[in-house]
């Protein structure tokens, strides 16, 4: 997400303001300290114009037993 944000040329504070969250929340998401809620993840994807799974990876494979 940090790369996408850098490409968009916006700071953590600006992104936070756009999304209505604190800068610490953006920082926590970028440093893997916090997984955002689904609404916030969807909004992040909208801001960057990419699918959610381009920002967040899920290692789970449906073909493998849980």
């Amino acid at each position: 997400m940090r790369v996408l944000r850098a490409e968009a040329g916006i700071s953590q504070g600006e992104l936070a303001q756009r999304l209505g969250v604190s800068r610490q929340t953006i920082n926590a998401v970028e440093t893997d300290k916090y997984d955002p809620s689904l609404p916030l993840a969807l909004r992040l994807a909208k801001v960057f114009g990419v699918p959610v799974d381009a920002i967040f990876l899920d290692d789970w494979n449906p073909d493998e037993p849980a």
Partner: protein
Amino acid sequence: MPSSSMIGTPMNQPDLAPKLPRRGNLQRFLISVAVFAPIGAVTGYLLGRALKKAAPGDPLTSLTLADGFSLLIAVLLIVSGLVVAFAASSDRRWNSIVERQPADEPVDPAARTAGRRQSLVCVLAGGMMILPPIAAPLGLSGEVRWAIAGAIALLLAVQTWLNLKLWRDGDELTRAVIAQTGALCFWSLQLALFAWAALAKLGLVADVDSWTMFTVLMGVYLAVSLVIAQRRGLTPA
């Protein structure tokens, strides 16, 4: 839209971001110790002197271990509240102490407001924790003790209102940290309380008084909230 949280799911971002530099952490720690240790020593000395002056002799020595710990927690709360208040007193200080970013970066006014509220919550909590153990051994009249109880009730009302404002105005990370802290404290403390109550009922351990239970609760709450806030990146590692 259902409120769905992904906390706890194995979801990760691609590991493209560079790791945060850890250099300077030791230096920062040593500076913090050099600054805050003398503050703690002076605060402790002044508090002890004030106690001795207010009630020389017996009252000071009649403080129980729980009283001592609650006073320690109270002083910690007040000092940390004052530090946050100092940080929230200007954008420059907020950036340098809390955000750890260049001083000229724009600051979200809501973050500073939350910081001011948080500092007031800490100072009020400390004040409420100091009053009962200090006032109890002074041999005050019933009227004065009721007046102190009234003052505590007033402080509690203000603090509760501030806590509600922090929750309502906080974003999802703030709320997640508050909720996780509350949940962890509830489960760990109810487990400990049940274990102790069962042993006490069986006559195997002594019963504990309500102030001791409250002191343990506050100690656990502080430790848990610090750990969770640090893990979620709200406080520096």
